[in-house]
């Protein structure tokens, strides 16, 4: 499908414009069936019918897109608190005792705002994918809570979970193995509709066709098989399937990393359009820091099962205070380097990520950290709020090259600078590991709690 260059861009801040945007209606929504229509999920009471010459399908994901912006007032749709996932490790003797745990996710808290996006980044093995799977309850969490509305997804039985599966959907990385090759696209996209009895049987195919249109595929192709589509188109099928149940939250686990570069942008833009159209919140898991920066106004950086830094886009990408985030960002190859030539100086992290079975004591990053000191081995740094929307878990938080030489956290933890118990000190009551942000925070310059 070709795209004309003069099509309107999307203006996320202009609801009038957005209302003229693509639509998936082919008259079905006006039928007096009372069934939920795709349109009903948007907050807008009215939706104009597309004009005949509106090439709505192709404009979805088609043209230039600016990064998503943060809505600081959006309420949280998903609140994850102290989430843990330990996979048991068994001994090899005759009787298989549990001899340890893979601490894949160890005490993670965050919020996903309604209609917003939180990015989860980190290296392989940091627990970001496991976190995504916990939220969709593909795994049962060891402990912690996942609040969605007034329910805690972490404690629901699979029967209680079933109606909620509509609300939280997942988009997978590999568009080749996540679609059943023996099912037609119509069946793949239509099965969730049938399972959850969202629409009557005879309405499934029209609805599938609408969905295919929404994701920019030809609706006539509903009876084709996945192998007849390219990688990018298959990912669109996966997105249509996830969208079928009109979820409030989508967990996108590396949704574009298997795609060619020119196709990645199409899919990212499509996800942006879907988010703006349908007010879907995204937990966006990716290792590509640039893609996350574009898609997510808020980002959490994970290392070895824990969040080491979380904040809005600027805090992470231009104001990072954690040495790991700084190392990650500095490792990304830079196109603009071509104008200078050669490779820029970067923070080199030595060695590999340690095993999550026996993570280092104290701060888990300390074994590879260029600024680690004694206290790091003794105490885990608290995830301390240091800005309006910025939290960091480091004893020596600071800009690159300006990390303090004395731990800022010792007083808060009630210990001395080497991490030994301080008879006069006691842990601060201001420390908490709750999701979201407080109105007061620890100011790195004055080293006190207060308002900005």
């Amino acid at each position, binding site marked *: 499908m070709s795209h004309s260059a003069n099509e309107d861009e999307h203006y996320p801040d202009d609801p009038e414009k957005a209302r003229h945007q693509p639509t998936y209606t082919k008259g079905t929504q006006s039928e007096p069936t009372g069934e939920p229509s795709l349109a009903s999920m948007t907050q807008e009471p009215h939706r104009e019918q597309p004009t005949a010459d509106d090439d709505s399908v192709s404009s979805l994901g088609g043209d230039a897109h*600016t990064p998503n912006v943060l809505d600081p007032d959006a309420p949280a749709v998903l609140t994850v608190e102290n989430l843990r996932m330990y996979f048991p490790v068994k001994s090899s003797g005759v009787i298989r005792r549990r001899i340890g745990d893979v601490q894949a996710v160890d005490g993670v808290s965050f919020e996903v705002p309604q209609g917003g996006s939180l990015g989860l980044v980190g290296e392989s093995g940091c627990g970001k994918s496991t976190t995504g799977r916990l939220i969709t309850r593909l795994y049962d969490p060891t402990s912690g809570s996942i609040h969605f509305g007034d329910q805690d997804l972490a404690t629901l039985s699979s029967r209680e979970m079933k109606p909620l599966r509509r609300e939280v959907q997942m988009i997978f990385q590999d568009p080749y193995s996540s679609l059943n090759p023996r099912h037609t696209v119509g069946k793949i996209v239509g099965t969730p509709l049938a399972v959850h009895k969202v629409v009557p049987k005879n309405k499934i195919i029209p609805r599938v066709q609408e969905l295919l249109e929404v994701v920019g595929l030809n609706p006539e192709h509903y009876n084709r098989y996945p192998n007849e589509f390219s990688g990018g188109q298959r990912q669109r099928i996966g997105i249509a399937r996830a969208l079928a149940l009109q979820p409030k939250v989508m967990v996108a686990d590396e949704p574009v990393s298997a795609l060619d570069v020119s196709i990645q942008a199409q899919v990212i833009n499509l996800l942006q359009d879907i988010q703006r159209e349908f007010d879907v919140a995204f937990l966006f898991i990716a290792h590509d820091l640039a893609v996350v920066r574009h898609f997510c106004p808020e980002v959490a950086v994970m290392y070895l099962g824990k969040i080491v830094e979380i904040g809005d886009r600027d805090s992470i990408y231009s104001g990072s205070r954690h040495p790991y985030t700084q190392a*990650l960002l500095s490792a990304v190859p830079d196109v603009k380097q*071509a104008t200078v030539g050669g490779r820029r100086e970067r923070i080199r992290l030595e060695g590999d990520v340690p095993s999550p079975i026996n993570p280092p004591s104290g701060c888990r990053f300390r074994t590879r950290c260029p600024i680690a000191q004694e206290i790091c081995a003794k105490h885990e740094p608290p995830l301390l709020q240091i800005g309006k929307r910025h939290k960091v878990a480091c004893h020596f938080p600071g800009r690159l090259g300006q990390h303090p030489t004395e731990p800022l956290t010792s007083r808060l933890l009630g210990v001395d600078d080497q991490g030994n118990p301080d008879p006069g000190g006691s842990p601060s009551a201001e420390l908490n590991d709750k999701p979201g942000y407080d109105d007061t925070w620890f100011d790195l310059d004055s080293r006190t709690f207060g308002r900005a």
Partner: protein
Amino acid sequence: MTTTANAPASSSTSGNEPYLVVDDLTVKFPTADGLVHAVSNLSYSVELGKTLGIVGESGSGKSVSSMAVLGLHDTRSARITGSIKVGGQEVVGLSEGKMREMRGNKAAMIFQDALAALHPFFRVGAQLAEAYLVHHPDASKKQARARAVEMLDRVGIPEPHSRVDDYPHQFSGGMRQRVMIAMGLINDPSLLIADEPTTALDVTVQAQILDLLQDLQREFNSAIVMITHDLGVIAEMADDVMVMYSGRAVEYGTVRTIMTKPEMPYTWGLLSSIPDVSSDVNTKMVPIPGTPPSLLTPPPGCAFEPRCTHRDKVAGGLCGTALPELRPASDGHGHLKRCHLTDADSIFQTEVLPDVAPATSEEN
């Protein structure tokens, strides 16, 4: 401009004879559906000590052309014409025996997914020693093992004496790619072809591997062909860049020229469809619409024409009917482009750059 030193294919300026010269290479595969035109009329050259980056998507022919350099295509199913000279020796049509002498010796290749590319059942040391022994038949097994340990040490694997007896799956992803590099370099090849060597790796590990490759290149003065889809990697690693699309070179030039003054809409598309961690936050992401064409029936005109948003700027629908030649671009200096657009540079400055780098374009 400082592009003259690395002018592609015109080695006269540097005085060095290029080590790898590919001339008018065409690779076709007959299949049940018809003839796949994987690579068409491809020409490039690489000097010792230099790195050529080849950028393209899957199906662009970037891997197929490089496999042809090592003669890795099945001779029964691939139709290869043109010329490939490695160190002055013609490779196309070379007998399998002579080809084998060259592979892994004068020219070596490292692959993307080291876990799949290393044999899962043999110890790392045995695989390295085997690569050494096949080109050093007089060496003893002891010598080959010593050489394997030496190479593992050189690529930065800790405790090489004990790790030489480990299996590939016992290494981490980054360490495995180091093993792969050690195996590629064990016979001191003058030409190293790296096919997406860091694609499967995390960024911090990717940075380590890229550092290593650059160190090794400095040490061995080898010519490197770096195949990747990541323009960032190209920007930091390559001297020259060739952009491939649908089996053909569509743009060729020094890395600086290609990244700052590209004149082919596909290159523009690649640049503007990739976000960047350090660019202006308001940089737009402009995807290339559509999908790459089938290699079975190449279109008569420019292969990029169906996806090109600038085709209307060429009079008479020429893009759809006539294949553009790979011709010098407006700034010369060995910058080649395959495009009918005549005022490409100004289109880039006025229409593309504002999307790619709003801040930069304001300064201009």
